[in-house]
């Protein structure tokens, strides 16, 4: 895909930031499961946390392709940083921009777009993953407030976010049509952060439980109409999948580059292992799958900027990119051999980080459901 000059400059900028400021801490935040609060703040200052938010709300007013490029560049050195952006921009801020009232946009978006506050998206529950209609969270209107009770799991940015998109049933009898979306602030009474997850990958990101206990949420914080929550969630996830696809492409690219470097320098039987055709073909396939994933992802990003509906493109990009990332990173470890299984090289981290892209914001199986639903409709 041909990139505009603006897009190239944003890509360069994200790469410079990733290499200068993120790469030096990537292994450390992974090893110590440390949230990179300082670089997260810098991402805000650089406009990466408000990339696609319009300027009137203190965003940068960039397009989705630029956003995809930035996420990819960060994931190329550290998937944790890319998911902080992706969860914040695509899942936290985007639904307010798309479904929020003017008051809600003015109140919440400037803090999110500038990165002064992080945001998170609370849909998954222990008993309601893909099956969103099984939500136990419940919102009951009492006077000017909804009283929400429930808990969510696996919430990215959970312990560091201050603004949450929270889904709860306002009418259990209506199933999916009984779900509503709310903007919940960290400071609301009854809000708390529960268990912090200890994960296989993206170890620097904060993944927590979010608990609302008799939490009073002002009526004005209903996002969209009552009963529209499922629509809000699904359309938000369509956008989110472009972020995750970009992340997967970046992880694959990082692993590919590491494998190429290693293959050229590792000497066995008197020659670099890259001189072996078996290994060359492996690298060729890794490069090709990565590039195919990249093109599908940029195509989906362009679709979001130019088409009213882009769910099919987003699902295809996310499915393909996630599976490519898993495959490429596994091969990258293989290229490294025994040392690749240790923390001396970043490829084992890339492999652990890749796995989540096949799971969150819709598993690969859900993507296939979405794709099938689209092509059979």
């Amino acid at each position, binding site marked *: 895909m041909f990139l505009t000059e603006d897009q190239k*400059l*944003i890509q360069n*900028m994200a790469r*410079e*930031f990733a290499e200068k400021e993120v790469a030096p801490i990537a292994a450390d935040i992974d090893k110590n499961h440390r949230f990179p609060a300082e670089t997260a703040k810098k991402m805000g*200052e*650089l*406009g*990466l946390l408000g990339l696609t938010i319009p*300027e009137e709300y203190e965003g940068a007013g960039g397009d989705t392709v630029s956003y995809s490029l930035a996420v990819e560049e960060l994931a190329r050195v550290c998937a944790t940083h890319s998911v902080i952006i992706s969860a914040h921009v695509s899942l936290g801020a985007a639904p307010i921009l798309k479904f929020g009232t003017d008051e809600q946009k003015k109140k919440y978006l400037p803090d999110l777009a500038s990165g002064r506050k992080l945001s998170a998206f609370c849909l998954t529950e222990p008993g309601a993953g893909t099956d969103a209609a099984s939500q136990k969270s419940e919102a009951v209107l009492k006077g000017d407030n909804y009283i929400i009770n429930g808990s969510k799991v696996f919430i990215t940015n959970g312990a560091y976010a201050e603004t949450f998109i929270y889904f709860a049933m306002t009418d259990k009898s209506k199933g999916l049509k009984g779900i509503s979306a709310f903007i919940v602030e960290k400071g609301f009474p009854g809000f708390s952060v529960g268990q912090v997850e200890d994960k296989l990958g993206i170890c620097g990101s904060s993944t927590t439980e979010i608990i609302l206990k008799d939490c009073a949420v002002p009526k004005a914080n209903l996002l969209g109409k009552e009963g529209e929550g499922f629509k809000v969630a699904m359309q938000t996830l369509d956008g989110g999948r472009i972020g995750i696809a970009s992340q997967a492409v970046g992880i694959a690219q990082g692993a590919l580059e590491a494998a190429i470097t290693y293959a050229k320098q590792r000497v066995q039987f008197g020659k670099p292992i890259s001189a072996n055709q078996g290994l060359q073909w492996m690298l060729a396939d890794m490069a090709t799958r990565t590039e195919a994933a990249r093109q599908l992802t940029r195509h989906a990003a362009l679709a979001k900027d130019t088409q009213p509906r882009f769910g099919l493109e987003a699902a295809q990009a996310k499915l393909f990119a996630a599976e490519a990332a898993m495959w490429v990173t596994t091969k990258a470890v293989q290229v490294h051999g025994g040392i690749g299984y240790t923390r001396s090289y970043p490829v084992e981290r890339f492999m652990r980080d890749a796995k989540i892209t096949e799971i969150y914001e819709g598993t690969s199986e859900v993507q296939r459901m979405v794709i099938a639903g689209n092509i059979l409709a």
Partner: protein
Amino acid sequence: MKKIAVCYKWVLNDADIRVNEKSRELDLEKSKPQINEYDRNGLETGVKLKALFPEAELVGVTCGPDVEPSTKDALSRGPDTVYFLNDAALAEADSTTTSKVLAGIVRHLGNVDVVICSEGSSDVYAQQNGPRLAALLGYPSVSYVSAVSVDGDVLTLDRKLEQGTETVTVKAPVVISVSPDVCDAPIPSVKQILGAKKKPAHALTLADAGLSADAVKPLITVNSVKAPLSSRKAVNLGEDVPEAVAKLVKQLAGEGLL
């Protein structure tokens, strides 16, 4: 202070330059042009100066054989506008020619109070443009500037020299050449990048700079550009760490270095 000009060079990123092992020639194919890293500190010095004189115009200035693609990148780093002089004849320009062209552009701009150059460029690192430009313009030259403060049209500048720091005062107009430690050069934000297209970039010709084609003919004939042969042995001591360390220590002890 009304007008501040910052000169920058559009140079190849030397991190991506490879050497052909056999011919010792440089392989520039993978190297993309970028704003000379030293000049990024110069541009930020301009931004900081303009912050003190908000009504002043901050102008980026460059010249070379193919510098038009540099303008957005430069504008994202703070200038209000860029004046660039693109001319294929400048492909082999040395400091003699470049400083004449830059001086011509500064004269074309007119009434420039402070011209900011950086200490050098990452390709030739000749460190000549600032003082040359000053001499051609008849402006005072202050080089190796590590700190800038301003009171009206009087600049107080710290120069970092081998012997120590020399603090000087000088009245504008002046050409200053700044060292990288004068200030940090921040990475431009997405907003600054996207805002760059709203700012103008003006193309100039040699005639605008008051120069004839003859005036920029290269003085210098380049005979060859080759990577020097490394005289170092580059002995690989192996991947087995204890074994490699043992070999190294033996070797260094043998050379009397321990």
